[in-house]
């Protein structure tokens, strides 16, 4: 089936504008609390457990979760479905890291603070290059996904749709800072969780498991094979990609800094547990595409295609488009706003201060934050216009972010280390990981694994080869 335009463009405009007004209104309302730079960037370091768990969970539910998780289940079967859900372990393992981060950097603002203190300017530059490639690629893919989803579901032209979604997110991040991001994430997380689990439940109700198993074994036997090579390797590859994403990115560090002292580890642990069933539910629905009689014409749209089919079959034909649009809009907005806020913080705190040597006063802060947020939004918009296949850059960033896993662990917990070997290891891991990505002998499903493995070996070696004491660790 082709994912049909299920609601008219005018209705689509109304839905998206109403949602946009709600998010911007809430952003303005919550933004009143942000009276200082710390209030704007870190929500006053006072986020509680409920909001903390919800914002971490909602941020981690990206358009990738609702688009790529079903694709993985549909192309790699049961192992593919489980493989995507292993990204939850990134959040679960970040819980103990958050305790340590708060302990050694009680006044920290960004991940850049940690890399600069621990590995010097060279380490900081390496980190900034990697995280900017990853963050901008993630932001642009979300923007493109938003435009494409609106075009597919409502018929709104791509350029109008992606501009609209980006403008809404920039506006409420601009007005409310992290307060607005966390608040809207809370509502969005509830909508996403209920929407995706409800669709998974409907699929379960519409199929006979025995018959579905028989059909898949007959037409797509490898999807049920316990030893499918690609899926088995994806299991480790995606898990390490997820570790790299969470451990290094300022989206997560800024939340660790923003939560109350003892809340952060609990919040990350709960968010990991809450997130875990989402790709399983989305993946299960996609795995049933063939037994449900859904012809997938574009693997990237497996999730929405199956969702539309089951909603129509369950008698929700008239509202199917609305439900899918609202869930997808929330999942995309919850990631775009977090990325805008965290990347702006990184630019404001790290680049202006340590590269441009500019000190921004409290009075100038909101204006500067506004300029940076709008600039990043404009950059994302400009890169999204040609609809480049920038998701390739995002996937390519897998080995890049995986190469930072061990340097972060070592930097947080170890007392002595050879920084040069660690940085050399990161660069070597990036090169070998990217090579593996393109190599026909290995493939994309091994890139993050190879990046993480090379970096791990170099980091362990750095502990024993001429290590020097580092002054940050207490």
């Amino acid at each position, binding site marked *: 089936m082709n994912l049909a335009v299920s609601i008219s463009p005018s209705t689509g405009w109304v839905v998206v504008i109403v949602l946009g007004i709600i998010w911007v209104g809430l952003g303005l309302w919550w933004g009143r609390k942000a009276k200082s730079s710390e209030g704007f960037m870190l929500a006053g370091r006072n986020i509680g457990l409920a909001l903390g768990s919800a914002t971490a969970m909602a941020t981690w539910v990206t358009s990738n979760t609702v688009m790529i998780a079903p694709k993985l289940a549909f192309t790699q*079967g049961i192992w593919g479905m489980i493989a995507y859900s292993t990204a939850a372990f990134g959040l679960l393992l970040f819980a*103990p890291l958050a305790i340590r981060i708060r302990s050694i950097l009680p006044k920290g603002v960004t991940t850049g603070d940690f890399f600069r203190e621990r590995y010097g300017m060279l380490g900081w530059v390496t980190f900034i290059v990697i995280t900017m490639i990853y963050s901008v690629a993630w932001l642009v893919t979300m923007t493109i996904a938003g435009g494409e989803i609106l075009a597919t579901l409502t018929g709104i032209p791509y350029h109008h749709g992606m501009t609209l979604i980006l403008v809404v997110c920039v506006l409420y991040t601009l007005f409310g800072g992290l307060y607005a991001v966390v608040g809207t994430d809370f509502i969005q997380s509830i909508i996403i969780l209920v929407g995706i689990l409800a669709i998974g439940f409907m699929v379960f109700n519409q199929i006979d498991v025995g018959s579905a198993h028989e059909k898949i074994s007959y037409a797509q036997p490898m999807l049920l094979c316990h030893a499918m*090579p690609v899926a088995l390797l994806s299991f480790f590859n995606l898990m390490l990609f997820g570790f790299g994403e969470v451990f290094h990115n300022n989206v997560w560090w800024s939340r660790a800094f923003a939560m109350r002292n003892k809340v952060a580890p609990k919040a990350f642990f709960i968010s990991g547990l809450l997130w875990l069933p989402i790709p399983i539910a989305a993946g299960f629905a996609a795995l049933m595409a063939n037994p449900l009689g859904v*012809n997938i014409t574009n693997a990237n749209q497996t999730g929405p295609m199956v969702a539309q089919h089951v909603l129509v079959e369950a008698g929700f034909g008239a509202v199917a488009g609305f439900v899918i649009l609202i869930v997808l809009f929330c999942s995309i907005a919850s990631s775009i706003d977090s990325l805008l806020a965290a990347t702006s913080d990184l630019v404001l705190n790290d680049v202006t201060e340590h590269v441009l040597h500019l000190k921004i006063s409290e009075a100038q802060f909101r204006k500067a934050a506004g300029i940076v947020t709008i600039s990043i939004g404009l950059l994302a918009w400009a890169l999204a216009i040609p609809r480049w296949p920038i998701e390739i850059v995002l996937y390519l960033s897998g080995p890049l972010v995986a190469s930072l896993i061990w340097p972060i662990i070592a930097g947080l917990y170890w007392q002595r280390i050879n920084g040069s070997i660690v940085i050399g290891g990161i660069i070597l891991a990036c090169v070998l990981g990217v090579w593996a990505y393109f190599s026909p002998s290995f493939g994309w499903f091994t890139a993050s694994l190879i990046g993480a493995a090379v970096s791990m070996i170099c980091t362990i070696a750095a502990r024993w080869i001429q290590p020097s004491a580092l002054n940050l660790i207490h």
Partner: protein
Amino acid sequence: MHSLVSAPKYWRFARASRTKAVTNPSRKAIYHFISSFCFSRSVLTGLVWGALLGSLFAFEAPTLTCELQQEDGIYQSTDGVVDLKWHTDGAEAYELTQQSSAQRIKYGLSEVRYHGPDASSVRTGLNEGWHLFKVRAIAEDGSISEWSEPLELKVTYMNAGRLRVLLILGGIVVLSTAGAIVHGHLSHRKRKEAEA
């Protein structure tokens, strides 16, 4: 074509004129006339049947393609996934079939994998080995095109030795990462307790 129609008496007669030795000149002339007439009827019938069959195959067979790399004219997949696309003008629906075999020369029976209006289909979970896909188009009036040129696909997964090494490596990296975090966390806690 004779086998497709019932043979009337003069056909049998004409056939006899070709198979039996006929010596009488007058009978020979009659046989020759009837034989020529029957030959013309055969040609005519052939033309009628041709026209009928031609109307059934009124439009061109679809062109079946995919974006995978080719080796010796055979598409290669390393993950058991193929994104098939096809097209022909004037089609109302399409029928996609798949034949599969672990051995190239022994394709199994053809199975219909899709029947409907879409002009593409992503096939996943394919076994290692050779797969042959064909598609034909169906017009609104029920006429059917000829089958497309078959698309031959070879699925080869990563070899077991390399897979085992990478899986072991994956297990070591993941367990070491989790172990390093747990160890670091416990050390941190112990240090904090000692400080307290």
